[in-house]
């Protein structure tokens, strides 16, 4: 089959779709707006204790390798879709690539990293083949004159004068795997996120546990001993426009708690919840394990006082209504919300959005992964594969 496809987004769903399309002989342009593929999943930690907990975080490096090794997939990082037109069942897509840092020239030698005084050069994940420049930290983007990194680069990969490139590709189908946005926990003002340093999100805990071996989360030697996980932050919440369950939070929270206890057996953990979602293969086992070691309180705290330790106000259903509980670390299990880019993507690709703002596919333009609704890593990957298989079927049907 001599067809071509555009996959927007290089997270698990995008990679899954790209691999499946390429396996069927379709040329794929995999477009990623960041400097490296992998998506949110590449930041997650392996949650194995003495057993594999099937969190699928280890699938990300494997899939990144696979997609890099697939000759039919052209990976375009730092690239965005800026124009889109439909013509006789084909799509003319204008791509724009930021070329300050040319990933084809960068060999990740690390000299720019050492040269930058602001720490603006970063490697997005350990599998990134090239570095990225954080525009928020970089002096050049702040309007100052600086070329320290460019001068340090031995291969000429960094050049602030290099204009961004734009060109057109013509494809038979498009897969939008543009991902999601974790719920902004600051919106739950009373829970103190953003105000109290020891109220963190599940995502931050993931990243911290991924950086280190141990539970020194803040890098200052302090170890949390009594941790609270608050579930459904930004999920099952009509007020936040998200009356759906985000599917992933119970899973990651329970696994993260298990991992913390594995690394530091003294760690005490309490879950504040409404319902624990134990769906999915092998997960009931994780939950049973957690029940043995952790406390479960049916009730979501309404307010946290920024004292030390933190004080949680809740209805604990322990025979006495109003209660306060003390914890030295609070982890908010934030849910999955639609990406803020969805509006723009929907406009560009003329897609509809559902009542929550997630994308809905249409003829020729498919939606995969969390762009279409909450999914975990493996579900996103499978959904990407399913989407690709559907697209291939449609294409075959058209030709045959």
């Amino acid at each position: 089959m001599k067809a071509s496809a555009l996959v927007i987004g290089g997270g698990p769903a995008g990679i899954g779709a790209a691999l499946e399309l390429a396996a069927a002989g379709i040329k794929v342009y995999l477009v990623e707006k960041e400097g490296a593929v992998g998506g949110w999943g590449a930041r997650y930690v392996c949650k194995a204790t003495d057993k594999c907990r099937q969190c699928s975080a280890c699938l990300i490096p494997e899939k990144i390798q696979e997609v890099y090794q697939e000759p039919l997939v052209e990976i375009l990082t730092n690239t965005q879709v800026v124009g889109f037109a439909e013509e006789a069942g084909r799509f003319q897509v204008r791509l724009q690539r930021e070329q300050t840092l040319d990933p084809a020239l960068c060999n990740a030698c690390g000299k720019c990293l050492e040269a930058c005084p602001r720490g603006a050069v970063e490697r997005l994940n350990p599998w990134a083949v090239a570095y990225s420049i954080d525009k928020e930290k970089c002096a050049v983007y702040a309007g100052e004159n600086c070329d320290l990194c460019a001068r340090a680069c031995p291969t000429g990969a960094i050049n602030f004068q290099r204009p961004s490139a734009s060109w057109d590709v013509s494809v038979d189908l498009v897969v939008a795997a543009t991902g999601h946005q974790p719920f902004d926990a600051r919106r739950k003002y009373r829970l103190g996120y953003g105000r109290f340093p020891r109220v963190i999100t599940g995502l931050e805990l993931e990243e911290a546990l991924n950086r280190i071996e141990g539970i020194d989360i803040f890098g200052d030697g302090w170890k949390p001993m009594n941790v609270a996980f608050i579930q459904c932050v930004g999920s099952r919440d009509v007020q936040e426009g998200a009356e759906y369950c985000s599917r992933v939070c119970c899973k990651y929270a329970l696994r993260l708690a298990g991992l913390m206890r594995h690394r530091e057996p003294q760690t005490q953990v309490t879950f504040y919840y409404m319902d624990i979602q134990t769906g999915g293969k092998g997960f009931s086992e994780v939950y049973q394990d957690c029940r043995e070691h952790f406390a479960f309180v049916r009730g979501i705290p309404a307010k946290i006082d920024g004292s030390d330790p933190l004080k949680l106000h809740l209805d604990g259903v322990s025979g006495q209504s109003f209660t306060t509980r003390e914890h030295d670390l609070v982890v908010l299990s934030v849910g999955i919300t639609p990406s803020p880019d969805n509006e723009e993507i929907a406009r560009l690709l003329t897609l509809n959005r559902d009542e929550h703002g997630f994308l809905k596919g249409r003829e020729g333009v498919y939606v995969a992964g969390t762009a279409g609704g909450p999914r975990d890593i493996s579900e996103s990957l499978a959904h990407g594969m399913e989407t690709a298989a559907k697209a291939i079927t449609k294409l075959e049907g058209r030709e045959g």
Partner: protein
Amino acid sequence: MSVTATRLDPKFKYEVAAHPGGEEIKVCFACGVCTAGCPVSEIDPAYNPRKIIRMVLLGMREEVLKSDLLWLCINCYTCTAHCPQNVKFTNVIGALRDMAVKEGYVHPRFSGDVDEIDRFMLKLRRDMVAAAAKEKDAPAKADPQGLLDQVTGK
């Protein structure tokens, strides 16, 4: 204490839902945020919005309508602000109070008295804040009892 089926009235929840203010009561999924944030619950743990909703849903008509707890709500709307399912519990309480009066569980005068108390409390609060505000630049800690004595002229 236990609840048995014979004393329950399954229609009660529909009646409350049909009453202005009680519309959303059925969608409560008992997360407990209402109670967790309630300032009355903090003072008197027997007052528990989640439990009151539960009692309504179960049809414990008599227990709910004759309960003194119904009248403890101070209409601060914190529960309503917190509720992830948009149950407006303050309005539910209003509906329940109406029903309690209508069905003769309390004398209408009592309801009027509670309103009077609320009004008086608001006035008292205003007077106390006004008294405290005179020294708002001073580092002194608030002394509610002293302020109360001051405004009531003791």
